[in-house]
């Protein structure tokens, strides 16, 4: 075989038909082709589910710019430009729900982070004791309870006539409070409820981070005579600082998304409490289901999705600056 012949053969092998080339580019050749097709088939149901339940609604956000009518559907409804937004931002609602969402979420981030950290540090000190598992179980229990049931729990405390809170207030000689008609108390009530439900979860995450610290640091510190307090300040906290910062930044990324269950069930959807308990998510739900004002709901929903996206990207940028390996993207 001459060198020209080999060259020609190689040339022939290199130039399959256009269709084959596209095929090879997309799926590989030979065994790789079969495996790519099989793996794509495996992933297909998941891809479809995400397409329908995650991507189609994203496209559906365009209804914020339409006057949606059920009979006309998404495509048939009239474009109205920014009318829905003019309407939404023309009411006091927008300011109220934005303020409540941001303020309550900020309160939650601060209280839960500090609380979880303190409890994790305490759990770490008694970790070898048999009761430690017992504490963890009790603390973790609220995480498993749905918000509907939490609303019953809270009702047990705040019910004006029979609730435990008013009994305690009267026992110390104070007047009883009609909690479900007193919006001024609700920021703190919601904060405590959220703390109660989330602190077990948070402390277990921080505990895991603390336990990942090499014991050698503590051994060395003890030889040098460092107190427990000093060890916490100089070893534990600095070493779990990246975890703390990342978790906080991630929550800041979601600061525009309120926990619907908390804000809907716990105040029992009481109109008199809306001034402090109404958040974007509950407002969207009410506009959509109770008022049937789809256009306003869509505009509020769009507003939330967009600002939410900006917040996530911003938070991720900050995470990247702290520790690029922990950045989400």
């Amino acid at each position: 075989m001459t060198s020209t012949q080999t060259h020609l053969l190689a040339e022939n092998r290199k130039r399959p038909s256009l269709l084959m080339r596209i095929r090879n580019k997309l799926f590989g050749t030979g065994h790789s082709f079969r495996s790519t097709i099989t793996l794509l088939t495996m992933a297909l149901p998941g891809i479809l589910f995400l397409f329908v339940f995650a991507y189609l609604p994203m496209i559906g956000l365009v209804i914020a710019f339409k006057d949606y009518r059920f009979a006309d559907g998404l495509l048939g409804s009239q474009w109205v430009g920014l009318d829905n937004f003019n309407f939404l931002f023309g009411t006091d609602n927008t300011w109220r729900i934005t303020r409540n969402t941001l303020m309550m979420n900020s309160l939650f981030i601060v209280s839960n982070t500090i609380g979880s950290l303190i409890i994790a540090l305490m759990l770490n000190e008694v970790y070898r004791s048999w009761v430690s598992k017992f504490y963890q179980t009790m603390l973790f229990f609220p995480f498993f309870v749905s918000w509907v049931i939490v609303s019953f729990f809270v009702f047990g405390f705040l019910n004006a006539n029979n609730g435990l809170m008013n009994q305690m207030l009267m026992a110390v000689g104070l007047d009883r409070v009609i909690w479900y008609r007193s919006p001024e108390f609700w920021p703190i009530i919601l904060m405590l409820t959220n703390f109660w439900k989330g602190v077990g979860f948070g402390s277990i995450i921080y505990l895991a981070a603390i336990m990942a610290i090499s014991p050698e640091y503590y051994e060395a510190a003890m030889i040098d005579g460092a107190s427990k307090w000093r060890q916490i300040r100089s070893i534990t906290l600095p070493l779990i600082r990246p975890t703390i910062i990342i978790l906080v930044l991630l929550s800041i990324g979601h600061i525009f998304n309120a926990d619907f269950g908390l804000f809907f069930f716990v105040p029992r959807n009481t109109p008199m409490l809306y001034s402090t308990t109404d958040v974007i998510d509950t407002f969207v739900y009410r506009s959509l289901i109770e008022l049937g004002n789809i256009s306003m709901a869509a505009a509020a929903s769009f507003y939330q999705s967009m600002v939410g996206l900006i917040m996530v990207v911003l938070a991720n940028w900050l995470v990247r600056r702290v520790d690029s390996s922990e950045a989400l993207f």
Partner: protein
Amino acid sequence: MTTKIRSAKQYRFKSFLGKAFLHGTLGLIGLLAVIPMILIVSVSFSNEIELAKNGYKLWPVGFTTFAYEYILQKPEQILRSYGVTFIVTAAGTALALLVSSLLAYAMSRKTFRHRNILSIYVFFTLLFSGGMVPSYILVTRYLGLKDNILALILPYTVIAWYVLILRTGFAQMPDEILDSARIDGAGEWRIFFQIALPLVKPVLAVIGLFYVLRYWNDWFLALLYIDDSKLYPLQYLLYVLMQNINTLAANPQTVNVPIPSQSARMAMAVLAFGPALFSFLLVQKYFVRGLTIGALKG
């Protein structure tokens, strides 16, 4: 020598005080975590008239099971809702685990050409979502699933966050095992079912628990998509009953009928979370393990 012994003793005393303080505080916090539940259980076993007179107590006043008898006189709705929740949880979790782990497996294969774009496709749904309104219109108008049990299952079938955790699990499988299986002529399907799934069993169990919890505790999908009382899941029934018992109690015409409105409401809540609480105690330690996987490696 003597000073050393004394300081050791002092140290031990100080550390004992510290430990006592820690246990005291943690015990108290733990108690606060479960007290609301105790309150609800005790009200559900209390006498209605005593409740009206003295308010809720942390122990049953005038112990009675009347509230439960009252509820269970007509158990159809509760049993039905239990049935709905059970079917949704079982079918939903099975489907979700299958679809999610298949997707995660494909994403984890290093030889898979499109794994990067697939990861981005899954990941992007964590960053951005269309929200409630488009989803509502999609499910009710275009998929026609209003008052259909599928509306309680399908929207949660692929949770991107869980898929990413599963992918981490699959990616940690040793390459040698997979390679040798491939050399022996096993196809991807066979590798997936006979080798990969058994290898990631712990992660699979944890994600399974996450899906179970999500389906069992869900009220959101019912709130949006279910009007027919035949399809009320447990959590939603609880919400509806809270409203209905309220209206019964507020209605002057029913004053003569002895409705244990306070205790029955709480008894309903107990019936709904009782079994869940029991399973919580059984699976709690797996959950703790799963949370750490998810949080630190996800």
